[in-house]
Structure formats: C-alpha cells, structure tokens
C-alpha cells in the first residue's frame, strides 16, 4: 500500500504534522485503531445497574448502545438499524426491553437480535418479506465486550488481547488502584467539543513536561511542581502509560523552603508573590489508597482513554474523534458506593480542577486548539519530541516526553507508517 506519510528519518523524536490533519490518515485510524484491536471504554457498570438499563456511548466515531441484558451480561451494540441505517436510540440513557427503529418499526432486543418486523407477511397476503428472510442475520452489529472491576470496554475485533495483557502489569496495577472492585457510584458527566485532533489530548496526558510551565494555578498559589517526584510507567507496546506524581497537596506543605531559584528562573509564570487562596480548604484531601497516599496518577489507555486519580477526584475521560480537526471529550466522574458524605463532597469540590471549566484543564483546552491551528496550516511541519532523551523507556523525572514517543512507536506499528 502507498504510505500515507513518510515519517522523518529521526524516527521516534519526530511526529509529522500531517497525522493531525490528513483526512486519509484519519480514515485509517478509524479502521485500524478504533475498529481494530483496541479496548474502548464505553461506560461503567454503575451506569447500567439493572437488566434493561442502557446508555449511549461511542467507539471512535461509531455510536453504540451499552445495554445490560442480565445480571451478568452487558452488550455493546452499534446504534444503527441494519435496514436503512437510521440511528435507533437518541437519549443518553434509559430503561427498555427493546430498541425500535422509528422508521419501519424493526425492533431489537437487548442483545441486538431482530425480534419484531411489522408486515413481515405483507398485507392481505401481498408483499412483505420472503420466507427465506432470516431475522437471525439482520440484527444490530455487536461488539466484543470485556469488563474489569466495574469498567466496560468494547472492541470491534475478536483478536484484541485480554484486558490485563492489553494494559501490561504496571498499568494494570495503577488501573486497579482506582478500579479495585468496590462498587462505583457515578457522580456525573462533563462533555465538551474541542477544535483539535484526538492525539493532541493523548500526548498532553502523557506529558509531565508541560504541567509546571502551563498550569499556572498551582504555581500562583504557591504549590510547587517542577521538583515533584515523577514516575512514567510505559507498557511494552508503548500504547498505554501511567504518570505517577507526588500529590500537589504534599508539595504545598513543603513549599517555601524547597523552592530553588535555579528552577524558578526558568519559569516565566513563576511568582515570588504567591497569592493565597481565600478558601484554602479546597486543597484539603481525605486519605484514600493508603498503600501510596502521597501520589496522584494519570493513566492513558490505548487508544484514547485516560483515568485520573488526583486530589480526591476520580474520573475517566475519552477523546472521541470527530474528524481530523475536532474531538468530543466525555468525562465520567465517580466515587465508590461506600464513600462517606465528606468524601463525596471532596470529590465534587475537586472536580473544579477538571473538565471544560477546570482550574487546571482549562489551560490545556486553549493550547489544544492553538496546537491544531499550527499543525493544520503547516502539514509539512514536524513536532520535535526530545525532552528526556530519544527513547521510550520508563522515566523517574519530570522533564520528559518518553511516553509520547512510546505512544507514536505503537501508533506507527498499528498504522504501518
């Protein structure tokens, strides 16, 4: 096959801008990545607790329905009637026994089988469908499903490795720190549409280098980040990784005497005149995850999913592609059924740092848009990823782009670029 892009000879330290903007590459991503051997987060079991419950979700740009058929069975069905292609289900969530197409009333049960076909034998013996028409072969397209401690993932491919192998041991361990098997309680959704490419987000989640420089909130309020202990753990393929960092709250305790002027001098945003919060209690964190109470994690799961555990906020976010230049970000915030009211209050307050109005993520959203404006107008350009060397190994320092390079190592393999 003709190569869609010639990757620069420097290899892992370069990313050609065309991967963010070329419609042909975008189309291949849908086929090879999102409809290929990937596990795509589609929701939490807590969103569909009873048989008959359903929610709407997406695998890449494909709309799907996540339906609880029974206690033990969750199905993920393509939200498209096989007759004419009409989208069956419009509401975000509900409870039903069947999904009926509004056009000709074909109806499907919770595992996608075609159960109702009005005028199957026509009217007065004329018309209708032949005796050979086999309802069994005209059901909704159904994806492969795996669940892991309350999180539901779907794949178009039967050959996607089992979930534990897909994440690799280090990433599985951090995934299970949050998804430890306790029943989850959904706290809500945030959704926004951002004019950027989906990979720009994934890169951002994998990049500890930018946090100190861009996220001024912490520096402004005297919370030191540049020197914070950081670990980057990357799975063997390179696709998934976890960023483990000291909690901002721990850093706050240590702030004044730990600030090194040689670091501060390099940060334009650095202020000697720290502002103080009028309501410092927003940074109060209740202890959980006692085995490692002082760290926060940001985990990215191949291809486009991230799980955060920061302060007391827990959430999953998806960067859903909507063409090369647009994404929808869907966030699901949650806690545990066993949370105390105080813990729930913390989780809700700490959501202020995340989402479209996030005190931290707000900065990122603006950058993602500006990033797309740059790459889309210069398709011949390349991005340079040289922070922290040129490899894709784990790291124990903050100024590194190793996980971003690893992501593109995997990306190139899957995309054959």
């Amino acid at each position, binding site marked *: 096959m003709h190569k869609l892009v010639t990757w620069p000879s420097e290899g892992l330290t370069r990313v050609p801008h065309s991967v963010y903007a070329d419609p042909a590459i975008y189309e291949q991503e849908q086929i090879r990545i999102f409809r290929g051997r990937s596990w795509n987060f589609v929701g939490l079991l807590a969103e569909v607790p009873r048989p008959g419950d359903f929610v709407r979700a997406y695998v890449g740009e494909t709309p799907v329905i996540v339906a609880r058929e029974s206690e033990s069975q969750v199905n993920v069905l393509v939200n498209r009637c096989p007759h004419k292609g009409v989208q069956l289900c419009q509401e975000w969530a509900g409870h039903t026994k069947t999904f009926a197409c509004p056009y000709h009333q074909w109806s499907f049960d919770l595992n996608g089988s075609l159960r109702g076909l009005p005028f199957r034998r026509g009217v007065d013996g004329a018309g209708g469908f032949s005796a050979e028409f086999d309802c069994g072969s005209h059901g909704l397209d159904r994806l492969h499903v795996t669940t892991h401690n309350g999180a539901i993932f779907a794949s178009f491919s039967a050959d996607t490795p089992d979930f534990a192998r897909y994440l690799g041991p280090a990433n599985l361990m951090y995934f299970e720190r949050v998804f430890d098997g306790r029943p989850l309680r959904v706290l809500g959704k945030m959704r926004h*549409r951002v004019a950027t490419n989906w990979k720009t987000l994934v890169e951002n989640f994998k990049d500890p280098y930018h946090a100190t420089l861009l996220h001024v909130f912490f520096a402004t*309020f005297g919370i030191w980040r540049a020197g914070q202990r950081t670990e980057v753990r990357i799975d063997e393929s390179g696709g998934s990784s976890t960023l483990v960092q000291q909690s901002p709250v721990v850093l706050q305790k240590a702030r004044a005497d730990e600030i090194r002027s040689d670091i501060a001098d390099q940060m334009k945003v650095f202020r000697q005149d720290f502002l103080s919060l009028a309501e410092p209690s927003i940074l109060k964190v209740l202890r959980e995850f006692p085995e490692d109470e002082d760290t926060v994690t940001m985990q990215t799961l191949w291809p486009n999913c991230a799980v955060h555990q920061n302060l007391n906020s827990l959430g999953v976010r998806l960067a859903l592609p909507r063409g090369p230049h647009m994404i929808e970000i869907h966030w699901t915030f949650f806690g545990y059924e066993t949370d105390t009211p105080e813990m729930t209050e913390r989780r809700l307050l700490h959501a202020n740092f995340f989402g479209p109005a996030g005190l931290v993520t707000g900065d990122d959203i603006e950058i993602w848009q500006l990033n797309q404006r740059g790459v889309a107008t210069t398709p011949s350009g390349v991005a340079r990823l040289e922070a922290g060397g040129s490899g894709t190994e784990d790291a124990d320092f903050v100024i590194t782009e190793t996980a971003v390079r690893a992501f593109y190592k995997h990306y190139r393999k899957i995309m054959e670029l």
Partner: protein
Amino acid sequence: MTHLNLLFEVQALYTECAAALDEGEFERWLGYFASECSYSIHTKENIDRGWPIALMSCTNRGMLIDRVAAVLKSSFIIARVQRRIVSGVRLREGPEFPLRTQASFAVFETFTGEPSTLFVVGRFDDVVCREDGVLKFAQRRCVLDSSIVPNSLPYPL
C-alpha cells in the same frame, strides 16, 4: 405596584451582573453576591439524571473569590469578547425574602478575527436576598440546556 418595583429591582441585578462579566469586571461581579453565597454551573443532563457534579462549583464566597483570582491571574485563556443576553426574569417565590428567581440566558463569543458564535444557552435558577438594603445573589445555579460545551468554559456565566 410593590411587586412590580421588586421585579424591576431583580431585573436590574441580573442586567448589572451580566454587564460586569461582559466587561471583564470580575471584582464588580463579586459585589453582586451576598456574604454567604454559592455559585454553580450544571448541565441539564446531570440534573435530569440526578447526578451532583457541576462544571464549576463554588460553595462559599471564598471559593468564588479564588475562581475570579484564577481567571485574572493564573489561567491561560484565549482572548475573547463575551456578550450575555438575559431575558425573561421572573419571580418564582416572593415578595418575601429570600426570593427565588429565574431567567433565561444566551452567551455569545467573539474571538479575534472570527465571526461571533453562540456559546451556551440555559437558565439561571437563583436565590436572591437583601443585604444592607441591596439585592444580592445568595445562590446562583446556571443550568446549561446542552450537555456539550464548545471548547472551554473559563469565565462564570
């Protein structure tokens, strides 16, 4: 007639509050909130599902002050002009205080070199009290009609 005067006074509070934000006068905007107050932005989707998460949630005045400080001093925000159209102000409970008041809003955004676009549409669902003789918001809940926000929501509504 008293009722009409009160409604007029509430309307003026809504108008001034919107104008302060449109003009980027965040400190002035803070002045329209009572000493004990809360401010939050929700989506209709979350409210309908009974989910408590808010896009922005300030449960007291201190948090509101910090949010304004973050907007002014610590956030990277692409420059824009915002225009708030507030309409249909009504008293749901009153004239005894605290009042429960509602209004519809539409916010338009204009970025440098771009035509104006509609940003968000929704409803204010508020509690208004009188403090030192002046009407102030004791609670302001903004409920967005759409579950999806375009790009970012850096400023209060």
